[in-house]
């Protein structure tokens, strides 16, 4: 099975090939590059599966340098490598699976709808898969940054796919710019890590998390902390990298790009939200968890930002009219939960939620895409209603996804969200900051249930509110197949880690925990636990069975309460917009707490004005000085030439005068007149 690792680079390389194929010969192909993409991501999926099994049997991480960018050894070299361990093998599987399904879905969503520019679309999609797969496999932080940026490029190209309209290019620009702002900090972090440790490798004895740990223990020499106390400096570095994470994973306050990114084609949204761009941020935190575990401050900030984002985004999701907008805010909120989990030391919980979320969010987006196709590209939920009978496959799969999203037992989201909240509660019991974060996450569960079922009821239940909804457009297997696959997964994937059941029965069925207990010495969950305990002061808390069950029961009850509220308010034949009753609060929510406004003001109002001021200064003062020098010279020349009268007598007089002056001067200097 170890032979699988030899083919690991091909997991990323295959989509790259299909990118080239789609870009250059896609227009001559029957499905305009879709088949190349499906083949490539299908191949990646199979290879990922093989690699996964290889990791399962061998257990040890596989590290390999694939390509050397800068081969200088002093001060450090820059390399592209692959690191296959439990985390990346799992993530590869998720990414290639979702990519593959999105390609298949695109056949229905794009090809069957007669879109133009399909080679460009499939090229972008392939490049997106390539970048994300390479990012997941990255063996060092430098490479991770490179592909992080490429992921940003792909999102730019795909969000702006319909470039003839005004909104998509603008949304694409915003997505790139906001994430770029985060990446600015990330880049400083990468440069800082390389400057500090002389390496950016994630795994191995000489990797930077290990070196950092040794530095804290006072064992490592040759680590330049630029005059800071090591722990302070590592916190700074961690927070700098976190800037990139917050940009890509759309955490407050850099979340504003994500709702706008809904301007892209819906399959792209599914890819961005479930498996690629947004997941990249959280994945990065998990990837270098051995480094974050050394810094309690960084962890607290991660947890608090995560908890806040989870609640903050969920409240906005309640008032949105478009189906994709609701999903966008739910994505922000769900990634908040993952950050919360990672911040409170729940490494497995965070990755678990990342996994389940990938399944049900991809499903929900594909379902929304199906609804949008059925509705002839109308996204307003108030124009829908009653689609349940007309689109049964979509309805049942979408319902499975919604139950998972809301966290209703036994769907996937319940298990993972429950574990996230449980970990937060554990940590909250000895630190009030985490308790606040936990409380915010818990309230967020109620709103999640509310907005999710508001969306389901408005879309599928009740009476059709428009003629289009009465007779929706039908679509083929290529859209139903991915939804069914994901529907099944969204239902059952939570079973890999049923902590409350394990607690009750005592059976060892927490497969994800077991999975992460194996692998490289410095990459296991035990090692992270030890680091957390030693450096972040996350002592082991005794978790009684009652606490486990109680925590699960509370979150389930809240989710049910949210869903119930939605049922009361919206599961009627002709629902009203109850959120109108919120009055001015609704306005605030509808305008996203005016987050966009101030950021647009920062970008356009402030920066553009400063730039104009600088331009005026440049043209007026600096260039003015340059032109001033030439004007003064010209002016003086103009004056001086007036001596040239053309009258010979004047010249003679001047000559004489000059002679006299000269004589007098010589006389004075020579002392003739003394």
């Amino acid at each position, binding site marked *: 099975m170890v032979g699988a690792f030899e083919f690991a680079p091909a997991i990323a390389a295959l989509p790259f090939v299909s990118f080239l194929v789609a870009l250059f010969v896609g227009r001559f192909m029957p499905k305009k590059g879709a088949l190349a993409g499906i083949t490539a991501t299908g191949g990646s999926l199979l290879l990922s599966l093989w690699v996964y099994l290889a990791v399962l049997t061998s257990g040890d991480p596989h590290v390999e340098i694939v390509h050397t960018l800068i081969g200088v050894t002093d001060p450090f070299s820059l390399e592209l490598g692959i690191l296959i361990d439990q985390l990346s093998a799992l993530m590869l599987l998720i990414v290639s699976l979702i990519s593959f399904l999105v390609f298949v879905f695109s056949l229905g969503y794009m090809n069957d709808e007669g879109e133009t520019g399909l080679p460009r679309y499939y090229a972008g999609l392939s490049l997106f898969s390539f970048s994300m797969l390479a990012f997941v496999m990255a063996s060092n932080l430098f490479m991770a940054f490179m592909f992080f940026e490429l992921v940003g490029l792909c999102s730019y190209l795909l969000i702006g796919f319909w470039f003839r309209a005004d909104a998509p290019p603008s949304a694409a620009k915003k997505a790139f710019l906001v994430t770029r702002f985060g990446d600015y900090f990330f880049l400083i972090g990468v440069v800082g890590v390389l400057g500090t440790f002389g390496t950016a490798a994630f795994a191995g004895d000489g990797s930077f998390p290990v070196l950092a740990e040794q530095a804290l223990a006072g064992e490592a020499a040759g680590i330049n902390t630029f005059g800071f106390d090591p722990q302070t400096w590592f916190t700074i570095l961690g927070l700098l990298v976190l800037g990139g994470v917050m940009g890509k994973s759309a955490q407050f306050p850099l979340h504003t790009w994500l709702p706008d990114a809904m301007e892209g084609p819906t399959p792209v949204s599914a890819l961005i939200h479930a498996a690629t761009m947004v997941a990249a941020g959280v994945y990065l935190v998990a990837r270098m968890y051995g480094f974050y575990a050394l810094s309690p401050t960084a962890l607290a900030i991660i947890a608090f930002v995560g908890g806040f984002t989870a609640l903050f985004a969920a409240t906005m999701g309640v008032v949105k009219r478009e189906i994709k907008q609701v999903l966008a805010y739910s994505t922000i909120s769900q990634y908040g939960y993952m950050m919360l989990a990672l911040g409170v030391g729940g490494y497995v919980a965070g990755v678990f939620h990342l996994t389940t979320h990938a399944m049900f969010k991809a499903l929900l987006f594909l379902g929304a895409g199906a609804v949008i196709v059925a509705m002839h590209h109308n996204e307003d939920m108030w124009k829908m209603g009653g689609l349940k009978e007309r689109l049964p496959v979509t309805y049942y799969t979408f319902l499975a996804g919604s139950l998972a999203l809301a966290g209703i037992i036994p769907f996937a989201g319940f298990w993972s969200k429950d574990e996230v909240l449980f970990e937060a509660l554990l940590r909250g019991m000895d630190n009030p900051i985490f308790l606040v974060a936990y409380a915010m996450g818990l309230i967020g569960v109620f709103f999640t249930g509310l907005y999710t079922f508001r969306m389901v009821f408005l879309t599928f239940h009740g009476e059709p509110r428009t003629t289009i909804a009465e007779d929706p457009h039908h679509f083929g297997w290529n859209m139903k197949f991915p939804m069914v696959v994901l529907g099944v997964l969204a239902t059952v994937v939570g079973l890999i880690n049923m902590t409350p059941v394990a607690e009750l029965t005592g059976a060892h069925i927490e497969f994800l925990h077991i999975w992460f207990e194996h692998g490289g010495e410095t990459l296991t969950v035990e090692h992270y636990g030890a680091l957390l305990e030693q450096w972040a002061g996350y002592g082991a808390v005794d978790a009684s069975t009652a606490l486990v069950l109680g925590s699960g029961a509370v979150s389930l009850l809240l989710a049910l309460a949210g869903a119930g509220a939605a049922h009361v308010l919206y599961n009627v034949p002709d629902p009203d917009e109850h959120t109108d009753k919120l009055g001015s609060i609704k306005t605030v929510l509808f305008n996203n707490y005016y987050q966009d406004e101030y950021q647009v003001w920062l970008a356009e109002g402030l920066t553009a004005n400063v730039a104009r001021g600088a331009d005026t200064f440049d043209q007026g003062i600096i260039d003015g000085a340059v032109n001033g020098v030439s004007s003064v010279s010209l002016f003086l020349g103009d004056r001086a*030439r*007036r001596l*040239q*009268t*053309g*009258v*010979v*007598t004047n010249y*003679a*007089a001047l000559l*004489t005068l000059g002679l006299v002056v000269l004589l007098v001067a010589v006389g004075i200097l020579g002392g003739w007149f003394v």
Partner: protein
Amino acid sequence: MVPSQYYLVLSAAVFCIGLFGILTRRNALVFLMSVELMLNAANINLVAFSVQNGNLTGQVFSLFTIATAAAEVAVGIGIILVLYRNFNDVDVTTATTMRW
């Protein structure tokens, strides 16, 4: 022997007369004559110093100056002729086109 100072005073006087002529007269011919006076003032100096120093360098040099002055007069007369042809006058202040 007459002391050199007397020659120098004479030379200065001739030079100043020539200079005065140049500064006050407008007729080109008078101009030319004034220039000749100034040149000859220089010649007087040269010859005077030659005598004082007891060698012939200054006298030889003054011969050169005289020859140059002759050539200069030839050119000067030519210029005056052209001036007259173009401006119908030999007044040096009327020809002011060669400025700026």
